[in-house]
């Protein structure tokens, strides 16, 4: 594992996008950053710029209007990247699954690496989701390097 890979696994920067949530998951996600959970201990920083981000955290169902923004954000993130879907709505649409404006879960638009269930999931679960996503990201990166060699 090269230096950059090590650095990335020790300090992943996250980008959060609310694709149509009720706020519950967003607030729990923000709570992860604050003193009681404090993910900055693990080098995790919430960043506003998709071009600096490693992990995309998506909360909420995807609707027709937010799908375009979500796709756009994902495309702007540099490789390697991972997507974590947070909460019942991001998994399948949750309580809103048959509403007219809903396309479905996040996987209707993006390839999802980790699904964090719950309504709303606890901050501990969200942190574990990010850590799992890092593992997936690393595996993929190593496989890509082996393929290139």
């Amino acid at each position, binding site marked *: 594992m090269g230096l950059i890979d090590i650095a990335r696994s020790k300090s992943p920067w996250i980008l959060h996008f*609310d694709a149509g*949530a*009720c706020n*519950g998951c967003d607030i729990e996600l923000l709570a992860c950053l604050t003193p009681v959970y404090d993910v900055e201990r693990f080098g995790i920083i919430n960043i506003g710029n998709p071009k600096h981000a490693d992990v995309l955290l998506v909360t909420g169902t995807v*609707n027709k209007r*937010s799908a375009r*923004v979500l796709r756009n954000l994902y495309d702007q993130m540099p490789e390697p990247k991972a997507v974590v879907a947070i909460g019942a709505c991001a998994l399948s649409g949750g309580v809103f699954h048959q*509403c007219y404006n809903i396309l479905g879960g996040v996987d209707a638009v993006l390839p999802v690496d980790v699904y964090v269930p719950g309504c*709303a999931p606890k901050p501990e679960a969200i942190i574990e989701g990010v850590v799992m996503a890092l593992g997936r990201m690393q595996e993929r990166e190593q496989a890509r390097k082996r393929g290139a060699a």
Partner: protein
Amino acid sequence: MAQRTVIPFGPQHPVLPEPIQLKLTLKDEIVEEALPHIGYVHRGVEKAAERMDYTQNVFLVERICGICSFIHALCYCQGLERLMGLEVPRRAAYLRVIWSELHRLQSHHLWLGLYADAFGFESLFMEFWRCREMLMDIFEKTAGSRVIISACCIGGVRRDISDQHLQETLDTLEALEAAFDKSSDVMLNDYTVKKRTVGKGVLPADKAILLGAAGPVLRASGVEQDARQTGFAAYDELRVEPVVETAGDCYARAKVRIRECRQSLDLVRRAIAGLPDTDIAVRPKGRPNGRTISRVEQPRGELLYFLAANGTQKLDRLRVRTPTFANVAPLVHMLPGCEVADVPVIVLSIDPCISCTER
């Protein structure tokens, strides 16, 4: 020569946890016009409420907004209880007040933190959110969940709070108040904070009424209006005086919310002290029929539900009017003339809850 630029503010922006887009037309650094574009979190809750049973809808309306979910459920249940002629037991009414006020406290803490973050005071943000976790622990202890507590049901509340948990709640509030004194002092008296908030985004009282502002935004402009005065749940016995400030700027809006936090602390204590010993719920009988309007006070202002039932299991119509929607028009009025660096502070000062607005 001054140059005109259009800047899209949002939908994905570090200061906004939720997506809303403001197209800002700038003349150099000064905002000339702000146009809101919404629809990023529209889910279609009102239509879904016609498809589901009226009992299932309690869980649906809770998920309109995760910050004040209990108050949404309260407003909906209250409307249905009126249609079905149910008298809620007094203990349930008091428990509803306790949970509502705890939700208001946690929502205001959340807002004060985000607001501090909007003008770049990160340690104050962390401090408010550290205190907020105490409230989340109360929710988890008393209702079993941190965010969406599902404690309200048609005819009362789903669970009781034991005496031991009531005592622990009081102890936690004691610790919370001590911490709140310190951090709210910074918010109100710090030189830098005042520089960023005093005189920014002024909304005069006549404009606030004309544009239909609600909640703390309206009260910070000097208009005395609070839906809790109508005396729903147990507010008829626990009287509430509206918190009013007159300046109408961002500083006044923060001050209103800080004073409301103290009011909520007081209300929770009074409600716990006067908690009657009755049942916590009555069983609903029959089906709802007729039309009604239900009003409650949310942390962000007045929430209004219109319910139309037809005597079957499904409702004809559920209409939700949320306070943030009422506050978008005042926001569009506040922005022109301000500097672009003040836009996040002014946007945050109305406490936007987009998931409520768009449902």
